[in-house]
């Protein structure tokens, strides 16, 4: 089953006419994603990579059923693009854009509460259910169908880990990059709840980093309610305090936000933590 995404998921691309939007539309289509339409205001009527472009989601929805949207719109217009997807009641919204203001994301998160809408990102690589579909910018070739769920705050580090998993024979059920911003649509705990109910997922790899407390919240949840093995990796042991490490959300603002503190807390709660990303398959082998 995997989670959130499969080959039947009907996906639209917001910002489909831009450089990244069109390139990744091609890549997603090539991977098998069921892309039903694109949206760029003022470009309605064009065709990009064989996909019809509309001015608004509402116009598009008159023609197509939609399950998910991926947003490649530049920061200046991204906030309205997100609201458009939310107001159109699209159930899965993946925001690739980096640079969405935090206070807009706060409003959006508070608005979708209770509305059964899942947002992934912003500032994220998207998600993939191997051999079925991908939404976002992940390089499809490194993934392999299987039973490991992966949730990560980083893009390329996810590829690194997945690459090791695939090479070691561990395929993935669904891999999700949650995004590097301080306020993100889905946190570790939200996605763990999905993996808990997914028959295909036998174990989960969590890839965290400095900043915030999502790893600690996830740890508490895993300890109490999560019934599958989890292996973690935390990036940023050598990151200095108070400096933003690329991601807007990767900044240590309290002692509990360091990589060391997170690793300790995970281990204290019997969740194994790899020293190097490439060690994860080995640890998984001992856990499964």
């Amino acid at each position, binding site marked *: 089953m995997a989670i959130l995404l499969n080959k039947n998921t009907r996906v639209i691309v917001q910002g489909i006419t831009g*450089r*990244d939007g069109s390139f*990744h539309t091609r890549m997603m289509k090539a991977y098998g994603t069921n892309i039903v339409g694109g949206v760029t205001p003022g470009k309605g009527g064009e065709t990009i990579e064989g996909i019809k472009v509309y001015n608004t989601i509402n116009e598009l929805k008159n023609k197509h059923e939609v399950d998910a949207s991926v947003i490649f719109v530049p*920061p*200046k217009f991204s906030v309205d693009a997100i609201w458009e997807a939310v107001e159109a009641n699209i159930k899965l919204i993946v925001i*690739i854009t*980096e*640079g*969405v*203001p*935090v*206070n807009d994301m*706060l*409003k959006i*998160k*508070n*608005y979708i509460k209770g509305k059964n809408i899942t947002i992934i990102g912003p500032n994220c*690589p998207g998600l993939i259910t191997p051999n079925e579909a991908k939404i976002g*910018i*992940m*390089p499809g070739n*490194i993934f392999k169908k299987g039973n490991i769920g992966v949730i*990560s*705050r*980083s*893009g*390329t*580090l*996810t*590829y*690194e880990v997945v*690459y090791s998993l695939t090479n070691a024979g561990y395929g993935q059920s669904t891999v999700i990059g949650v995004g*590097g911003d*301080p*306020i993100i649509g889905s946190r570790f705990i939200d996605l763990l709840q999905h993996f808990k109910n997914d028959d295909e997922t036998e174990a989960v790899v969590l*890839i965290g*980093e*400095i900043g*915030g*407390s999502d790893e600690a919240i996830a740890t508490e949840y895993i300890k109490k309610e999560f019934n599958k093995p989890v292996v973690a990796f935390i*990036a*940023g*042991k*050598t*990151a*200095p305090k108070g*400096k*933003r*490490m*690329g*991601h*807007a*959300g*990767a900044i240590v603002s*309290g002692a509990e936000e360091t*990589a060391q503190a997170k690793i300790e807390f995970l281990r204290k709660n019997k969740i194994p933590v790899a*020293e*190097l*990303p*490439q060690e994860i398959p080995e640890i998984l082998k001992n856990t499964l």
Partner: protein
Amino acid sequence: MKLYEFQGKGLFARYHIPTPKGKMAENVNQALDIIKNSKLPVVVKAQVLTGGRGKAGGVKLVRSLDEANEVVNSIFGLDIKGYKVKKVLIEEGLEIKKEIYLSFLMNRNSEKITLITSGEGGMEIETVAKEKPEAILKVDIDPLLGIKSYHITSVFDHLHISDRELQKQFTDIIKKMYKMVTELYLNLVEINPLVIIKGNRILALDSKVIIDDNGVGFIKDFDAFKNYDDLTPEEITAKENGLSFVKLNGNIGCIVNGAGLAMATMDMIKHFGGEPANFLDVGGSSNPEKVINAIKIIRKDKNVKVILFNIFGGITRCDDIANGIKKAVEILDIKLPLVIRLTGTNEKEGVDILRSLGLETTTSMQKAVKKAVSLIGE
């Protein structure tokens, strides 16, 4: 982005949040002139983008002109946590009746805008949280609703402010701070202390303002208070070129795509006995220029002995990076050894480009990191 106290107070003035009368000085003579023309006492306050200036001797009272010279000179001579004092704010001395802590922040955990207040004004809030947690009130505000009367009522209850006139001033300040937070995309606005002075007037004695980096592009006159003073010159160059760069103390320069992978690369260098010289994320959608700029920035650091590329293509394409390296090799006279790890989107094209330059690549991060560390050992 952090603002100086005086910049934050400039914003307070714009939002009509009252502050003490004050003037800026950029050198000793200016400062002494201002003091001569002021009613004493005045307070001289070092302007630095870090906390703890009080303990470091960066805030001093001048009661008489005799004291002025010594105080001003001592403050301009300070180096506070690595920040040299280049500006001071000279403010009227006030008779303080009560000090309050008041701030709003974008709260990652509750996902609300959180008002924090305490009657222990003047102390760092982290210290109060540790030593006297019951003194702190946190009020979560839903950004869809904004601040309401009952939020403010709970602040009065907590601080035991029952005087109507004080409540009126306080309400006004709270609402204006909240307006600032939303209009200026602030991650934090902190007044510590907010003081009640003789005559029952409330003033912001200090300011701490942090703007959301993602928000600055949306603020109309952002240039008016932009500053990069908490960044090194290299960090500024990096920022202006769309790179994320943080200087560290090691000797292995790193150029990585993706912040998480960049951190993991640093961690792995350390793990294998090396020392990273920097964090550097070339970002997604890289164009060749970014790679050239990244190399330029890194080799300014004379400690750097080797440059390690760790590229895992996703939105970044390996051929873009390879073309960047190619151009850099052509334009720049690169003396440092390059260790290149390249895999992912358009890997083959990238490897071919580099091979044509005689540059070897690997697809293994560990191999690349180990090689970089071993080159230092030689």
